[in-house]
């Protein structure tokens, strides 16, 4: 067991976890924030994307102990039902989600994409989301959402 201390959605958290605990398990099971999902075991699908120190990370690929001292932000930390983040709002307005399972990872990847490229072209978005798989939408409306979200974020 190792004691892990990090900042999760702005709050300091601490827990003793087995050394081999993945960051995604720490978030979902230890901290019971289940908005971050697990869709594969090979870091391919992107359902588990969170931000670690502002960078999008597949949290199934990182050990919790490796996030010691880090600022971790999950989908629960970027907006609320009463006050959606502009990217969440853009996904809602542009029907950028269907079953919702890939959505948290998709939104987290999209936010980082726009933070790095405030005015992405359609091709920029398509290439930027290459690490997130969606089986429902055919991506058409996700791409529209991210471009609309970029305008709303006005980075």
């Amino acid at each position: 067991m190792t004691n892990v201390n990090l900042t999760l959605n702005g709050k300091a958290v601490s827990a003793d976890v087995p050394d081999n605990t993945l960051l995604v398990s720490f978030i979902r099971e230890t901290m019971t924030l289940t908005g971050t999902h697990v869709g594969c075991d090979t870091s391919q699908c992107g359902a588990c994307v969170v931000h670690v120190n502002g960078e999008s990370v597949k949290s199934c690929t990182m050990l919790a102990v490796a996030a010691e001292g880090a600022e971790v932000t999950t989908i629960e930390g970027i907006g609320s039902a009463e006050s959606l983040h502009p990217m969440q709002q853009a996904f809602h307005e542009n029907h950028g989600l269907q079953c919702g399972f890939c959505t948290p990872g998709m939104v987290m990847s999209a936010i980082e994409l726009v933070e790095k490229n405030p005015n992405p072209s359609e091709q920029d978005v398509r290439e930027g989301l290459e690490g997130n798989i969606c089986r429902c939408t055919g991506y058409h409306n996700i791409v529209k959402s991210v471009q609309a979200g970029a305008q709303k974020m006005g980075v």
Partner: protein
Amino acid sequence: MPEGSTKDGIGASVRRKEDKRFLTGSGRYTADISRHGQLHVHFIRSDHAHANIKSIKTDDAAKADGVVAIYTGEDVAADGIGGPICGWVVTNRDGSPTNEPPHPILANGTVRYVGDHVVAVIAETLQQARDAAELVEIDYEVLAPVVDLASASEGVQIHENVPNNMYFDFELGDEAAAEAALANASTLVELEVRNNRLIPNAIEPRAALAEYDPAEEAYTLFTTSQNPHLTRLVIGAFMLNIPESKLRIVAPDVGGGFGSKIYVYPEEAVCTWASKKLQRPIKWTADRTEAFLSDAHGRDHINKVKLALDENNRITGLRVDSLANIGAYLGAFSVVTPTILHTPLMSGCYKIPAIYTNIKGMATTTARVDAYRGAGRPEATYLLERVMDAAARQVGMDPAEFRRINFIPKDAFPYQTPVALQYDIGDYEAPLDKALEMIDYKGFEARRAEAAKRGKYRGIGLSSYIEACGIAPSAVAGALGSRVGLYESATVRVDPTGTINVMTGTHSHGQGHDTTFAQIVADKLGVDVGQVQIIHGDSDKTPFGMGSYGSRSLAVGGSAIAKAVDKVIDKAKIIAAHLMEAADSDVVFADGKFTVAGTDTEKGFGEIALAAYVPHNYPHDRLEPGLEETAFYDPLNFTYPSGTHIAEVEIDPATGVVQLVDWACCDDFGNLINPMIVEGQVHGGIAQGVGQALMENAAYDENGQLITASYMDYCMPRADDLPDFKVDYTVTACTHNDLGVKGCGEAGAIASPPALINAVIDALSPLGVTDMSMPASPEKVWRAINEAGKAQAAE
């Protein structure tokens, strides 16, 4: 079409009510649910495609840290546990029934595919269960696998009661008439196509959490299901012998299904069974590789097609002889998918006087194959739309014109096909014309020439499809071998304050029912969409329903809701008439208000709702208090969406990469309730079809090992593989449901693969290429180009 009475009623692109919980991480999927004291189960699966189990040694594992129980097939057999059942069987050509082998939930003596469930290890933590599984020793006697579909009948027999590895041998149509047409054909077109095997890959892996309440002697199973009541029926009545009233199935938010979550799987039954034995909640979540190995796969046909044309290039006959790979066991819809959902579609949108089709369902030592988005109809559309292009090429006609002259004309409806179905309505030229315009078909040759200057091969391909969905009329389904009804149910409960709860027997796993169904209710009652709450996915809360698949939710489930709302209105009118001291027949309901014709007397819907629950001044002699109605709706026919999809591709001869550069489609889904949601369904369906045509392939090696068992090996469509899609509609309203709707969930997946492959072949046609199998991977395309080049050079 009912009049839209609110701004967010029928026909409005209302933004989805369910979005916020998904966008904020508040969605509640099965794996998100935990129970105090829960145990975790890990399944040891067969490493072999086909083997006898000589022994299973669990002693060391049983002593490992945290292990609570280890179960094998012997424990299952000792408790008399049944397996998942086949929900629909057919009669063979010779009059004999489908061969149905047993399907034990943990292998009993023999394993029949890689991934077959052998041992359940249950421990305090998942890690402990996995670690203990390493200590279980299984001694196998390896048997010969049966992997190749074409030669499956010659392989070793997989099940005792399935001779020649053939589950069924089904035929439909008039063989003599079809043979006569082929014999007298002016042009005979022959084609063999392979419909590649796919893995559905909902992004949420399957999961289950079962708990037993000794006080109530009742079970609750949270599970990733598209149809909780069917799951209850199968697990309760056929597998674990639990009274239905003592088994509650909850399918909470479900992260996509595409067919793969229709069926009851062994894991769900093991969790439920063990929850009572161990008196602890039992949780299981598939990892992705388990999903690849053990989810029901889709498609996997070999189809031999013969098409006869007369001297005017009109189709006179069609014969299709097929093999369907069903895999190691029969799933719920394994038999119906390649038979009843496939062979009656052979007429497509075309007037074909004589049709005969035979399909044999074969057992192989691979995962079971069952309904996957479109289920039988994509396979029919693929072979038909491929042979339509081959025929057009053979007679030198434009493929659009060749389709046009063979369409069933719009004045021919209702149209009885020679393969059982009667199409109620359609107009196939309208969507063809619109789609041709959307993609600028006329300008294509200029684009081809321009691409050629850049060294690229450019091609265009069409697919005009019809599907039979909104399954189904129960009586027809029953006559054709279904063991269940296929109606749908709804309860509309109006609260005293006028808010409305709708309990539906369908299940939403991405389709947006919370919104679409609320729009129907809001429209009919003249209330705000926000006042309507849709409740689904809990067998304790909703009336018995058949769930969601086969594009049935709106056409069948939506119609049940509309019927229940009509009953509410009928009752409310009598209450209103009483309160307004008017005759029932003088009361008119519109825009949420009851008025007495010719007067200014009116009562709001909310006032009537309150009166129903505070019945002080009430027509007690005529009505019971309360305002809640239930309706079951069983349709009279399937619905028949249709349309044309057109793909345009560019191929780089250096790499063989097919770039999808444009897509236009025009579908006729009847009336649309929420066009935004419909468009999303079309996009997603096309993407899955593009996946099948260009990327996806479930590949087993000769030993029966699945070599595409992760996202590293199974190529899923990603954002940069797809273009924007141009989507539009024409409308012929369904004639036999009040909403005039047909269904839209599967159309994209049905229509798109042949459009794409036709486009690839068209692009390579200057080289003399006339065939391409799915998926048209860069390697295959590159080889086709180079082999054609060599052949041309040799000439």
